[in-house]
């Protein structure tokens, strides 16, 4: 029987959510790169073009979901990598708090930016 080797605690949900968000991000990150570098070119970006995309409810909601899943996947990945390196006790609690605050700031700022483009929720 092969020994178990994982960054995640046995029976935890974080491993599952890391994989679920990964499956979503594989598709959306590839789409994001393709749309903004190959269909449109990065040097042609203007506020008006970004605004036109964000005013579509489908694109707006996809980007909000992209922000939420990427933040979770990234921050959860960092946390697990640090636990994997031996982080524990008070340091682990402190890192968890810092990452939690950083995630909240990132999500709030991302949503504010999306709303600035769309001029409100596009419904």
């Amino acid at each position, binding site marked *: 029987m092969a020994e178990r080797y994982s960054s995640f605690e046995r029976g935890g949900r974080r491993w599952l959510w890391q994989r679920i968000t990964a499956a979503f991000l594989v598709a959306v990150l590839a789409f994001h790169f393709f749309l903004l*570098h190959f269909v449109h070119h990065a040097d042609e970006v203007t506020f008006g073009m970004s605004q036109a995309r964000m005013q579509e409810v489908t694109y707006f909601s996809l980007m909000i979901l992209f922000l939420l899943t990427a933040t979770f996947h990234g921050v959860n990945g960092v946390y697990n990598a640090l636990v994997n390196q031996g982080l524990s006790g008070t340091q682990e609690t402190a890192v968890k708090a810092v990452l939690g605050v950083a995630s909240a700031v990132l999500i709030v700022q991302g949503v504010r930016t999306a709303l600035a483009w769309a001029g409100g929720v596009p419904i």
Partner: protein
Amino acid sequence: MSQSYDRGLVEDFGRWREFSAGMWAWVFHKFTGWVLVGYLFTHIAVLSTAISAAGQTQAIAAENDVYTTVITALESLLVVRILEVGLLAVAVFHILNGCRLLLVDLGIGLDSQDKSFYASLILTGAIVVASVPTFLAGVFG
């Protein structure tokens, strides 16, 4: 039945010469993950200039609002374009190796883990090289 295999601690980077393909895959996945999460924060910070630009109707129409100006200025720098190619390399490897991990988790291709890692590297290289002309378009004038 799979065999028990004591490969030692992958976290002990000092013994990197002894690392197997799977251990390099682990190291590269962590490294690209750190780069991508760092970029995510930078990306949102740069895009946040749209908050200041919103409402500047005339400037937006004239395409000289703060968001358009910042993005255009960044994209005119060769170093930014080269960093974007690097970002693509990091993202493509993370995506392809991530797909490999998902398959391994599902028990698919367990006997070909080394080959699928090498395939991820080769495919990353091919996609990045093929994308260079698109990523550098217009930067030389």
